[in-house]
């Protein structure tokens, strides 16, 4: 029962398991829902999908399953009647069933449909008799006859019967889209690492007991509180091509600022060279030597580069390639130094991942970063945090 449905979800790469599938069957067996597809949609979603990021995928799979015909054009004439009957019956509401009466009842409608299916040879569009799309015949899709049977239509024309899964309301929760501040915060939170560090101000019960037992007098032990001790060094590209991504960079920055207690940030332009700076307006007067960064922050810092890595490859590979001043060592050397000092080092790139292959400088930097370049989508950020947290 419903195994096809289950497999359909699997083929849409939804992480569904047998146990959840059995739960769904159990719920149906117990009569949790009435015979309505909307209810079935809600129930199967509650039982099978455990992450709102997957809701959109589920909606698409569901729509495809219940109205499976639409994916193959011209299949209308080959549908086995029994199957069609079952499917249509399921998607009909009470009102729709009443409307069918207007055409002489269900039996008659199906009888006619069968006849037409036999008469019809090819795909059809328009007109008022044949099955196809866009006509006024009671059979087919995108038509206006209220007594019509919908075959292969992804949403009903008159808005009254829009099925929930066709609305795809959860599209913006899909984790392959771009982020908002809250999403970023949530993703960054995965980096949390708790450790005891600092002043001992918490009563350590276990140590006190064992120590008291050993010494035969009450020996109180204290320990420092557990805190998030992740240290992050963030280096952001600013200006030039990054102007397109200012909003995203701002969001990322404000999220990071509230999430990490030890967050150090610096700006650079296009690629990392001898200097970085903290205040972009005073970038020429108040800058920090990159060597100082390497010496000041220990190797337990996690380094996050943020930049679109879009520039001429010379800016990375050649001495003097910087567009701002003559740099004696190429940017690649600096990147490599960072990679050597900080084992946890990643690059976040706001450009969409699909175009990376077409920009040489992105390829070069990705190679320099040992492939640890991630897009700033929710899933990209999550992958990045996983690498950093390892």
């Amino acid at each position, binding site marked *: 029962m419903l195994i096809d449905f289950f497999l359909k979800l699997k083929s849409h790469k939804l992480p569904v*398991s047998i146990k959840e599938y059995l739960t769904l069957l159990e719920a149906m067996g117990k009569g949790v829902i009435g015979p309505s597809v909307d209810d079935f949609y*809600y*129930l199967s*979603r509650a039982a099978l999908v455990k992450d709102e990021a997957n809701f959109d995928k589920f909606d698409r799979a569901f729509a495809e399953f219940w109205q499976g015909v639409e994916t193959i054009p011209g299949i209308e004439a080959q549908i086995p009647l029994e199957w069609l009957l079952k499917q249509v019956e399921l998607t009909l509401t009470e009102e729709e069933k009443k409307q069918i009466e207007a055409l002489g009842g269900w039996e008659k409608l199906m009888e006619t449909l069968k006849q037409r299916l036999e008469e019809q040879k090819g795909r059809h569009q328009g007109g008022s008799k044949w099955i196809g799309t866009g006509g006024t015949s009671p059979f087919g899709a995108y038509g206006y006859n209220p007594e019509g049977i919908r075959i292969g239509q992804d949403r009903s024309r008159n808005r009254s019967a829009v099925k929930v899964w066709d609305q795809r309301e959860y599209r913006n929760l899909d984790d392959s889209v771009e982020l908002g501040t809250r999403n970023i915060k949530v993703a960054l*939170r995965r980096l949390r690492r708790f450790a005891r560090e600092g002043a001992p101000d918490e009563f350590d019960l276990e140590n006190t007991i064992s120590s008291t037992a050993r010494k035969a007098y009450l020996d109180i032990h204290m320990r420092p509180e557990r805190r998030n001790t992740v240290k992050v060094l963030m280096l952001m590209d600013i200006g030039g091509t990054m102007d397109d991504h200012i909003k995203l960079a701002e969001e990322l920055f404000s999220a990071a600022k509230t999430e990490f207690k030890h967050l150090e940030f610096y700006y650079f332009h296009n690629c990392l060279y001898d200097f970085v700076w903290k205040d972009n307006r005073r970038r020429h007067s108040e800058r920090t030597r990159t060597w100082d960064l390497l010496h000041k922050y220990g190797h337990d810092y996690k380094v996050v580069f943020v930049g679109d890595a879009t520039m001429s490859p010379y800016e990375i590979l050649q001495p003097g390639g910087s567009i701002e001043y003559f740099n004696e060592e190429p940017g690649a050397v600096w990147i490599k130094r960072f990679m050597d000092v900080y084992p946890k080092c990643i690059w976040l790139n706001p450009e969409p991942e699909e175009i990376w292959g077409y920009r040489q400088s992105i390829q070069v930097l990705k190679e320099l970063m040992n492939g640890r370049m991630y897009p700033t989508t929710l899933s990209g950020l999550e992958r990045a945090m996983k690498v950093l947290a390892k």
Partner: protein
Amino acid sequence: MRFNGSDEYVSTDDLTLAVNAAIQLQRPLLVKGEPGTGKTMLAVQVAKALGVPLLEWHIKSTTKAQQGLYEYDAVSRLRDSQLGDPRVHDIHNYIVKGMLWQAFSADSPVVLLIDEVDKADIEFPNDLLRELDRMEFYVYETRELVKAKHRPIVFITSNNEKELPDAFLRRCFFHYIRFPDKETMEKIVGVHFPELKKTLLREAMDVFFEVREVPGLKKKPSTSELLDWLKLLLAEDIPTDALRSKDRKTIIPPLHGALLKNEQDVHLFERLVFMTRAKGA
């Protein structure tokens, strides 16, 4: 037992169905959603509607799964032993029952709320797998098995700060509370402020959804913030006209501090209002 919403809580169809499925199949229901959409209130209201007691277990970053089962109060026992209290010989005196134990040993079914499960350590949900699945656990100190007399109705809320382990998710029903649309929102407000004038409500709602649509807000106002704001509007007796103007974008809504909680957001909002006003002039 069936839940059909209550006079104090507006439940959408899909939420009602998820709750009933969880009740009938006796599985935990995991509820996620934007902050302030009533995740915690759901458990409170279900308990109220079904007329069963509610046990709340609020999770913090330092909470351990064991604390929900029971804790062995070694310090009291140590003290009692030094004072020569006879109670010290029976270990039962020093086992403090946690929320799960209380829920399991209740004489009638209860609603158990495990609030903000994602705040805890990553291992926390894994440590509760058997307890939530079989509804039983073993007390090592007294060598007894605690089994649920009635399987409690378990609600778990999460703010998505950590991913929950798959094994844990497989045992739950899941529901994501979407941000309510205007219609549902009107119902929700009606439930909280039944005496609110229709006109004021409509104006306030328009302003609220407009503020939500301002691009670039760090924290969009949520349902609970709308309710707070309305409370303030009522308390201050702001006339409906103050909310309405020919071009609504030219005024800053009164008491906007209840809606926008971040000075950068307020700043951004004021700037936008200023810009539209400059354009209109």
